[in-house]
């Protein structure tokens, strides 16, 4: 019997000396660099200077100051028409947009690999590992393949409407990144209606998706589109309610202020309002079409849902946006509920945007994890979950938060005492209301009634079956 047929395959791990030496050198260099950087940071050489790499926003601020001086020398007629600081505005906008676009593009490229790799590890297989080192070039190969592919348009499809959605769906996916608060001064669009901006922008994607499903002239696509619209409209409400709780608590719709509130009070909003965190996260999975709520593109039922008919790079755009949105959800969970760029004082040592990215990717990892683990809900189950459970419970929680905020305004206990009380009250309320509401609606845990198969020793037909049932 040859070794090839041996079923007990022994994995032999070969470590080459060259690899070990390379790794050693890299580690030493990394350590040296870390110590150097730590010295620079601790000695305070960076504080407030434009080259403070811990906050790229500072450099931009210095640049804009200088540009404003330049602006003063410009003709007054132009300034009267465009505003006092038009050069710095335009430069800032262009630079920031370039930064976001670069980040988003690289993110999409790497995410294809990350997602497939993670899912592969969850599913006891390796994932892409052929193209490039560790399969890292797989996204490039995928993109090349997708670009080369012919774009098929079904007969009877509305050509213009069919071409539009992949582009339209890309725009909100990109725009939501504008309000992400990366670091204290690193906000591209630090508008005071950030939360409303976010809700408004993210809901426009529904339109593109419905357009895609309708224009495809395909039953599967239409079913997927109908499901998406129904689901997205339903889950916008709990999502907005969760954000309303955040706004009530912090008293602001500006994302930087929301993060700053969490920093000032030394607490994460997710700890204060676990129900809001859960609602936001669960509703987001519905908005994102990810398991357990991926009914809009339920592969086993309606093939690929609204993008069944898309091929080539048009499909690629849908796919990429989906991955990008997943990280965006991670980012917003981090900003709203997990303290944003803060990490209990560590943000003075570690660049805050790295902390923020770590939190965002943590949220994304949970999404991938869920996708690799859970089966899918049915449409009606999902809808009833939104309308019968999430929305009423969230409404009650909003009421409670409003009462708490009002109480905090009139009572002047120390912050720590107030917030502990609020957190405890919210947690207790969450546990109580979830149980009480479920019981009120007649839900009993499914597990209690589940009967495992019984063992039959005697064979027989219908009569034996009835005997077994009565027994």
């Amino acid at each position, binding site marked *: 019997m040859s070794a090839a047929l041996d079923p007990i395959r022994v994995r032999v791990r070969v470590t080459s000396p060259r690899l070990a030496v390379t790794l050693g050198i890299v580690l030493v260099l990394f350590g040296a660099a870390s110590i150097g950087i730590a010295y620079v940071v601790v000695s305070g050489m960076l504080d407030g200077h434009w080259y403070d790499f811990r906050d790229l926003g500072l450099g931009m601020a210095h640049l804009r100051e200088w540009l404003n001086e330049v602006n003063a020398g410009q003709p007054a007629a132009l300034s009267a028409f465009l505003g006092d600081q038009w050069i710095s505005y335009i430069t800032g906008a262009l630079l920031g947009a370039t930064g976001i676009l670069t980040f988003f593009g690289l993110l999409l490229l790497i995410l294809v690999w990350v997602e497939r790799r993670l899912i592969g590890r*969850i599913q006891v297989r390796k994932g892409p590992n052929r193209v490039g080192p560790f399969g890292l070039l797989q996204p490039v190969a995928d993109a090349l393949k997708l670009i080369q592919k012919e774009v098929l348009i079904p007969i009877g499809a509305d050509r213009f409407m069919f071409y539009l959605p992949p582009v339209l769906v890309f725009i909100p996916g990109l725009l939501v990144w504008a309000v992400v608060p990366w670091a204290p001064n690193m906000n591209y669009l630090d508008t005071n209606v950030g939360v409303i901006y976010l809700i408004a922008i993210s809901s426009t994607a529904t339109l593109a998706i419905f357009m895609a499903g309708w224009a495809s002239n395909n039953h599967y696509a239409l079913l997927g589109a109908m499901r998406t619209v129904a689901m997205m409209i339903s889950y916008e409400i709990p999502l907005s309610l969760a954000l309303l709780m955040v706004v009530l608590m912090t008293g602001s719709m500006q994302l930087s202020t929301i993060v700053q509130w969490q920093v000032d009070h030394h607490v994460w909003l997710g700890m204060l309002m676990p129900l809001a965190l859960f609602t936001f996260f669960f509703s987001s999975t519905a908005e994102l079409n990810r398991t357990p709520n991926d009914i809009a593109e339920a592969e086993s039922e309606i093939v690929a849902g609204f993008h069944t008919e898309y091929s080539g790079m048009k499909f690629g755009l849908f796919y990429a946006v989906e991955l990008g949105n997943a990280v965006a959800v991670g980012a917003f969970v981090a900003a709203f509920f997990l303290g944003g760029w803060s990490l209990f004082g560590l943000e003075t040592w570690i660049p805050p945007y790295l902390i923020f990215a770590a939190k965002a990717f943590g949220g994304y990892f949970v999404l991938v994890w869920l996708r690799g683990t859970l*089966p899918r809900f*049915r449409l009606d189950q999902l809808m009833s979950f939104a309308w019968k459970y999430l929305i009423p419970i969230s409404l009650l929680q909003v009421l409670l938060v409003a009462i708490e905020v009002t109480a905090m305004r009139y009572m002047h206990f120390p912050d720590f005492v107030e917030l502990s009380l609020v957190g405890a009250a919210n947690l207790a309320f969450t546990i109580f209301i979830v149980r009480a509401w479920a019981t009120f609606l007649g839900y009993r845990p499914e597990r209690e009634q*589940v009967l495992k198969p*019984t*063992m039959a020793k005697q064979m027989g037909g219908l009569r034996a079956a009835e005997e*077994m049932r009565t027994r």
Partner: protein
Amino acid sequence: MTTANEPYVLNIGPQHPSTHGVFRLRVVMDGERIQDIDMVIGYLHRSMEKLAEERTYTQNIPFTDRTDYLAAMSNNLGYCLAAERLAGVEVPERASYLRVIFAELQRIASHSMGNGTFINDAGAWSTPLMYMFREREKILDLFEMTCGARLTTNYMRIGGVAFDPPNEFYPAVNALIDELPDRIDEYTELLVDNEILLARTRNVGVLSAADAINGSITGPMLRASGVPWDLRKAEPYCSYDRFDFDIPVGHVGDCYDRFMVRLEEMRQSVRIIRQALEDLPSGPHKTEIPLALRPEPGEAYARVEGPRGELGFYVVSDGGPAPYRFHIRAPSLINLSLLRQMAVGASLPDAIVTLGSTDIVVGEIDR
């Protein structure tokens, strides 16, 4: 403004992720609700029954691999039993035991696949399927070790089995059956207590005991409906009467029961394999039969409990070297026939889950 609702036809298949082969469902739908189902089969028809009339009895064994390609061993076994009954061939003791071992290994492999794809249909993005593939791979390695093939094994012979397993087989199979109960517990942990899975599968695609019997349903589907009927106990063949094992029977007859019955049957198969390996007698593994077997004119029907249900082979001889008539009672085809009854009135996701729970193999439906 008034809007008119009118039903529309959705073609599920021939190429669709959930039809598990080339098989088509014409579904008349009203929104997401199913009004009627029309099953279109025949895309994979290879006219095996007719071809078998041109080949000798031994040459027909590879055909049986290719009907139900996920349970080749069980098909081999059924056909060989029928041919032996027709020709009056005695099977050595050791061959009987080996047949049981391999048929049960095949059952575990097939149920892994069936349950895995079923969960896949319920929307779990192939993770359980991959877990179950892991164990199925090991079983297929055992097959490869013994007979050189993984799927289309062609292992059973009229009068015994083709080869004695090599020496490496025994430690490997022992290691596997020690490991399998833990693995099955792992699936249970991952899936059976999962609230979403329960919500998706319980009381979906319910089939009552009377309906199942009237529809001639067999196998795990019949047992899930509460009928205690298993040919291994009701009409023991090979050496099944010497082993101690239980037949799991469901309560409601829904998709969840079918899933659970299959999971439990995997556990029972491990028990059978363990006993068969302990008592495995020595001796020849095959009776020598003439190369061109010419049975006396007559007919024979043999049935085995395949992974999908009662797998029957009907062989008629006119005294020549080839069968005069060769017919397969394919459990997949008959189990599928009640899909319409189970799925009409349900929603599309429910119908897909129900289809997944019937565990069909299209190669067997079309033959």
